[in-house]
């Protein structure tokens, strides 16, 4: 089981200038699995993904990504914040092409096989209609599709997506989630996707990794998203509430927290009647 995992993380610890961000993080993602990485702001989702790609060096632990036999990196990555500048003279198609050979030296030569592969990828993410438009002129949802295609075109065994659903409207969220689920089945690509709201992902996720308080719990969604489990993870009592099929995690002591924060800042409390 361990050997077959698309990704396995064990005993991972990361700190920035002495401040612990992640501690003893442990989980596995099986090939073709759709895994949601959930956690509040600042819980270390981006840091964890960066460590898997190799942009951040961990202090301790082991990260193993399943090699795909052809050598080379088998991880596709879509970063959290990319501002695609309108000055950059690249069509959506070119960005996908650079996913294939962007690290190679020299000037690219024309290649039918490469163009066909790029075209197939563009169709797969539903980007046929805007493939020839400048990347900086596309909408957020369209850019997200192109970045997914850029990351997927090499057929990696593992695709990491950092908050790909932020800044998208409800319909685009649904479309991207459905698209990712379809792609992961089609290409047998494991997906690890970070988000702070798990609800849009509940219908598709095989597994959840929940980050809070420097630690992680992972498992099936109904094993992890429970009052006892998350309370233990956060280190204080939280309630997991289900409303109309949506899951909400509520910190029971939220009102006290806010009162305490107000009390720490007497200047402002004085002005509140």
């Amino acid at each position: 089981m361990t050997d077959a995992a698309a990704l396995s993380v064990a005993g991972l610890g990361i700190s920035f200038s002495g401040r612990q961000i992640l501690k003893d993080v442990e989980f596995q993602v099986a090939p073709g699995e759709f895994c949601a990485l959930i956690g509040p702001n600042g819980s270390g989702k981006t840091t964890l993904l960066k460590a898997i790609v190799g942009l951040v060096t961990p202090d301790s632990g082991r990260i193993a990504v399943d090699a795909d036999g052809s050598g080379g990196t088998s991880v596709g990555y879509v970063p959290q914040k990319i501002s695609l500048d309108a000055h950059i003279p690249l069509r959506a198609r070119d960005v996908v092409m650079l996913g294939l050979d962007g690290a190679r030296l020299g000037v690219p030569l024309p290649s039918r096989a490469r163009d066909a592969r790029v075209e197939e990828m563009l169709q797969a993410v539903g980007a046929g209609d805007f493939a020839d438009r400048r990347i900086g002129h596309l909408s957020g949802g369209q850019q997200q599709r192109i970045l997914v295609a850029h990351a997927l075109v090499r057929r990696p065994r593992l695709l990491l997506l950092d908050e790909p659903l932020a800044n998208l409207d409800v319909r685009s969220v649904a479309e991207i989630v459905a698209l990712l689920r379809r792609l992961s089945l089609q290409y047998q690509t494991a997906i690890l996707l970070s988000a702070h709201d798990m609800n849009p992902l509940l219908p598709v996720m095989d597994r959840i990794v929940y980050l809070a308080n420097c630690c992680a719990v992972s498992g099936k969604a109904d094993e992890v998203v429970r009052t006892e489990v998350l309370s233990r993870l956060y280190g204080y009592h939280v309630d997991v509430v289900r409303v109309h099929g949506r899951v909400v995690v509520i910190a029971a002591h939220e009102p006290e927290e806010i009162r305490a924060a107000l009390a720490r800042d007497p200047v402002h409390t004085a002005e509140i009647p």
Partner: protein
Amino acid sequence: MRLLGLMFAPGFFSNAPVHTALLVGGGAAVVSAVVGVFTVMRGQSFAGHALADVSSAGGAASYLLGLNPLVGFLGMAALAAGGMEWADVRDARERDLLTGVMLGAGLGLTALFLYFAAVTGSATGAAITVLFGSMFTIPASIVPVALAIAVAALAAIAAIYRPLLVSAVSEDLAQAQGTRVRLIGLVHGSALAFAVALSAMTVGAILSTALLIGPAAAGLRLADRPGRSLAIAVLTGLIATWGGILLAYDSYYWTPGRGWPVSFFIVVLVFLAYLLAGLLARVRLRGVRLAAAQPSGCGQH
């Protein structure tokens, strides 16, 4: 035939300084256009200008010491580029500050060297030549060195073409592909230093920015593909430079005995090309909008 006679004043094609100017100027234009496209994409236009200003200190020093000015320009530009890459400041505002301070320090040195050159009388007109160029006085001996520098800069850019494009989109994306982004920055910085030194040699240190940014801006506006942007930039740079040389040569016949500076014409042509590119881009955009508006109509009518 008569029109050609009007355009090309007698002796243009047989004049040795004109040959040198066409060769060195052409090389500078091509390299600046190619490197400039990436410099603008990377948001380093200001850094490009600062390198040029710092390089003028090297140019001025070489007049004082009687060295080949190209060596002076290149030495200081490379030093400044290396310094900036070494400092590796990520924050855009902080980088602007560093660049500005470096630019000031460079020009200060230039002022000192040019002052010495003027008071010792070792090189009359050095100030004009260093800052604003003097294409018809470029010694022919510089041609091989200049062309070697041009080829080296173009080869460097060609080698890192794709990683350079990905880094312009996002350094994180490039790094995730296994590209060493600092190395890419260093190679681009060196090519930039080469381009700036060549341009400083032709249109002068201060005006070299025009050749670096103007043609690149035109290329980036008009084309949606990197190859085409590069082609447009190169063409614009070449037309402006060679056109400027031609006009300056002809100007000896407009105002007999006293021609106009080449740099003036080049900069004017670059500026016109930039305006034209803006106009064309706007026309094209309107065309796209009209075409897009036809089928959908957005249910308004």
